[in-house]
């Protein structure tokens, strides 16, 4: 048994709701209450703000849903789960910033033309893909019908081109450079 047991009970927060319509305020109020928090009508009594749509600027920590405010501590998509909203409210209330992991904010972008940056040869591309798929050098040699020595040679060349010193790094760097994502047309 641990001597310093923490009898931590998550405390209920006092949440002010800002939403564009009475229906949305009612829906979010229900959700926040079901999470065990108190909904307060006034900024003065609140510890954190849950805002959908445009939120009035203020000094209280704010979790925004859908439309994002530059100064909101928590940024969740409009379809965030109750668990995510609960965690974001708690985190924002204690001064943390929250965003959804792995969420690359969908924005309108140009085709990523990275042809000028790192250019691999066809063989290097094959070897890099195989490494990313988790194949060993021996398996790669068999699959591509080349010698083990040649696999190592191509892999070293890839690592030199992208400036890394291990296979793991090579895969993560190559992903970052977009070298593993094909363009599908």
């Amino acid at each position, binding site marked *: 048994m641990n001597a310093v047991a923490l009898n931590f009970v998550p405390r209920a927060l006092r949440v002010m709701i800002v939403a564009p319509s009475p229906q*949305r305020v009612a829906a979010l109020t229900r959700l926040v209450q079901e999470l065990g928090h108190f909904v307060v009508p006034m900024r003065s009594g609140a510890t954190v703000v849950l805002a959908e749509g445009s939120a009035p600027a203020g000094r209280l920590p704010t979790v925004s849903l859908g*439309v994002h405010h530059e100064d909101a501590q928590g940024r969740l998509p409009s379809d965030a789960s109750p668990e995510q909203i609960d965690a974001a409210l708690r985190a924002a209330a204690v001064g943390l910033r929250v965003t959804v992991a792995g969420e690359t904010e969908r924005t309108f972008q140009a085709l990523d033309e990275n042809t000028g940056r790192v250019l691999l040869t066809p063989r290097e591309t094959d070897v890099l893909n195989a490494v990313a798929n988790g194949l060993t050098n021996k398996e790669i040699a068999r699959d591509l019908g080349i010698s083990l020595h040649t696999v190592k040679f191509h892999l070293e060349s890839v690592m030199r081109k992208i400036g890394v010193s291990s296979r793991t790094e090579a895969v993560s760097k190559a992903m970052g450079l977009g070298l593993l994502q094909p363009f599908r047309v």
Partner: protein
Amino acid sequence: MSPASNILTQFSAALSALASGARGFVAHVETQDGRELSGVLWKPNAVVVSEQILPDSGEYQVAVAGQTVKAQLAGRDEGTNVAVLKLASDLPQKLPGFTRPEVGSLALVLGAAAEGVSARLAVIRALGGAWESIAGGTIAHRIVLDTAIGSEEGGPVVAADGTLLGISTRGARRQGLVIPASTVDKSVGILLEKGSVERGWLGVALRPVAVPETLRPEGRQRIGLMVMDVAAGSPGAKAGILGGDIILSAGGAPATRFGNIARQLGPNSIGKTIEIHLARAGAIVTSAVTIEARKSG
């Protein structure tokens, strides 16, 4: 004493006149669950909104200059970030003429707000030629603003003379972009007529690679696009394209950039046959591919 009139008051008055003049075409769009967006009354019966932020909603409520009508989604074009809502009844429409801006000129980014319109002053930061979006749309020219886009997204961007530059769109890294009015207009026409913008499909996954020296066309082209994967039953498969082939050119354009391929797969490309030059097993092979419509989703 008469109130001061100087260049700043005149400048300010000109901006507010532009903003209030836009009330006739800035649309306020509301979804069934109360979410609000900005849009442009593009035609008497059609409102344009930003595709990337438009939530699905059975019905939308559109308000322009105090008049409210119901609307339904007519279609989305991810490629140009245009979605069109078709109005249940016509509204009086006053869309200004289209122009193209100059670098450094002023623009007013307009959006819908509870009390009419919101406005944000911007400078045209950069201009460029035609470009291709990730989703395969071709945008007639690149217009970058010096400001980020907030709740105005999808609303009109007007020039100092009140002409329409296009609709505001949030780009990568919070860059404020303008989809030119001419591009929007094209998508609106297609969406109202067909409900979707079809794009061409080859069914291949491509990666840029260094072309082996012996196979470089005219000894110059350093880059080709290697076929990583061919979808079963796709136009590429029917034309005999294989994984590992390196595309050197397609439809006469060198395969040095994705954009050179994407540009040939526009809405009018379906059914067309293009010639593709490939490097395969040390030789150059020519293959003819008939473009089909890309399955959406």
